[in-house]
């Protein structure tokens, strides 16, 4: 499989009044062609800004540094502005959590998609319109001619998210960044949208970076998962491996704290303590304040990301047992 995206040692910090706030530290990941990479974590773990930094969509007080950020052999760190605008939308598209606020309420939805085509492709208005309607049909919208001339407030959340996806997919991007695309939707609608994204992934060979806090959704969508905690990548593996044999105590805790029908009504496992603020990041392992297995070493030294089995990385001094070891 071809490597589409190769990011090494990505760090992001924000300049604030109280000084430099480190939000993401030394995150590395690769995205292969046709793959779906999941980034999972709780609020404030840096999962969204990691993805946003790829196409430079961060606020101006952010400082991004990395050893490598290759997209299709092109260095994303050093490209000029015009090139970046070209990549945005055409090669790397993005859909957000809130479809309601991500679309312009004063513009017809069809027009918004058509504009996307006209920005990136040399096509006449008529061609672009036709392509828009074709794409709208493809993402499962019916009565396309009428919808083309609707405004956002006339559409439901599920339909808007379909419009967002149509807009993102219209230029057949190589990478689609989906930032919690179904969190604001109902479960039956969520199932429809997930199905649609999988289908697009198969048919158009678009790679997806799928950001979510819901391990259930991740399990259904992704081939590979990266678990983030307080700006660090704490575990990275194939989805099935990670869910079956979590090696990092945090991943394990996350999985255990989801109600399991098989275990019945016994008490849930709850990770003790609270999620720290970014400004309170401990010196050692980010998870040491909530980890039962933490030792003095964990509190003072930051563990490195180590490979414990093929393609299974974990950032922990004492990873949980793995059957292959």
């Amino acid at each position, binding site marked *: 499989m071809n490597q589409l995206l190769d990011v090494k040692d990505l760090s992001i910090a924000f300049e604030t009044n109280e000084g430099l706030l480190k939000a993401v530290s030394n995150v590395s990941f690769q995205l292969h062609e046709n793959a779906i990479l999941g980034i999972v974590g709780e609020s404030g773990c840096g999962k969204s800004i990691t993805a946003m930094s790829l196409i430079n969509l961060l606020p101006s007080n952010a400082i991004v540094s990395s050893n490598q950020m290759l997209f299709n052999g092109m260095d994303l760190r050093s490209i000029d502005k015009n090139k970046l605008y070209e990549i945005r939308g055409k090669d790397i598209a993005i859909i957000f959590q809130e479809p309601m606020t991500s679309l312009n309420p004063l513009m017809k939805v069809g027009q918004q998609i058509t504009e996307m085509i006209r920005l990136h492709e040399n096509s006449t208005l008529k061609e672009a319109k036709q392509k828009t309607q074709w794409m709208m049909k493809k993402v499962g919208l019916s009565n396309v001619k009428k919808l083309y001339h609707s405004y956002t407030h006339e559409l439901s959340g599920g339909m808007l998210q379909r419009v967002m996806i149509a807009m993102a997919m219209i230029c057949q991007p190589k990478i689609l960044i989906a930032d919690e695309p179904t969190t604001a939707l109902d479960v039956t609608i969520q199932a429809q949208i997930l199905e649609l994204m999988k289908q697009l992934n198969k048919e158009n060979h678009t790679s997806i970076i799928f950001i979510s806090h819901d391990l259930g959704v991740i399990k259904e969508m992704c081939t590979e998962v990266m678990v983030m905690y307080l700006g660090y990548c704490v575990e990275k593996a194939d989805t099935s491996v990670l869910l079956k044999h979590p090696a990092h105590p945090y991943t394990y805790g996350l999985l255990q704290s989801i109600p399991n029908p098989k275990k019945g009504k016994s008490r849930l496992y709850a990770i003790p303590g*609270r999620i720290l603020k970014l400004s309170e990041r401990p010196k050692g392992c980010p998870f040491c304040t909530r980890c039962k297995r933490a030792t003095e070493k964990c509190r003072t030294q930051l563990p490195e990301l180590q490979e414990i089995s093929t393609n299974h990385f974990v950032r922990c001094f004492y990873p949980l047992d793995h059957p292959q070891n």
Partner: protein
Amino acid sequence: MEKEILLEVKDLKKVFKTPKSKLFEKQSGVRAIHEVSFKIYKGETFGLVGESGCGKSTLGNIIGGLIPPSEGIITFENKSISTLDKKEAKSLSRNIQMIFQDPYSCLNPRKKIGWILEEPLRVHHIGTKKELRRTVYEMLHEVGFDKSYYNRYPHELSGGQRQRIGIVCSLMLHPKLIIADEPVSALDVSVQATILNLLKDLQEKYQLTYLFISHDLNVVEYMSDRIGVMYLGQLVELGRVEDLYNNPLHPYTRSLISAVPNVYDDKYKNKTSLKGEVPNAMHPPAGCPLCTRCPECMNQCKTIQPPLIEIEHEHYVRCHKYL
């Protein structure tokens, strides 16, 4: 043993009137709750699931006394709520308390935690100032806070901590029924578990009855003894958790259960996903509410509303298939 009924809801209806846009326009309404009936037994957790806009929160608010029903009877401990006078209504509000979804707006930002927790007792004239303070300390200790939290403001607390304060606040009056309206949906996964455990512990300790409202089927299943499934203001299925999950009868329940992404299920589930979207509540279908999306829709579904019937013991469904 006959179970004791704590709360009974009969033929409850609620129509929200929409504001008139023209002076002589005929006033229309949104049907939020339509012919909902169920019982809650003492000591159980009754779960209410459904998607956004299905009326589950409205139902919670009506039972909690925040908004009046349009029609129907609610009985609490064999007393009809609608016929209560002001004094009785106040004592009733002691027995039914609510927990809300958003931990960020459920605590008054201008008041200290201690004040917020004392307020229920103050309003009901229980105890002197000293006693209030002592009770609050005890309750804070109960959910794992030390005394210093008495003098803190809500913005100094994290989301999970605030939700715990919200829970304590609803417990101050030792109510019999607690209506928990999406108590964990706004919280991170690792914090959710803490709150769910706490709710279970408190239920055991104080013999509480919960009306647990959520859109998250995993959570509802974990918490509840019996579950009601709502769709477009109607109760479409009602039954014990085991029955409902092992043998879902209504097509909506079935698709709802199959649509939930589950970490623990190994096999790829056979999805019976629903097509289309929830119809506008201002113009609900004439027949079964699901008829516009149902894969098994028959002719009579479109015109006749099915009644809620008992299929097996304690398992009700509102569907033409079972008539």
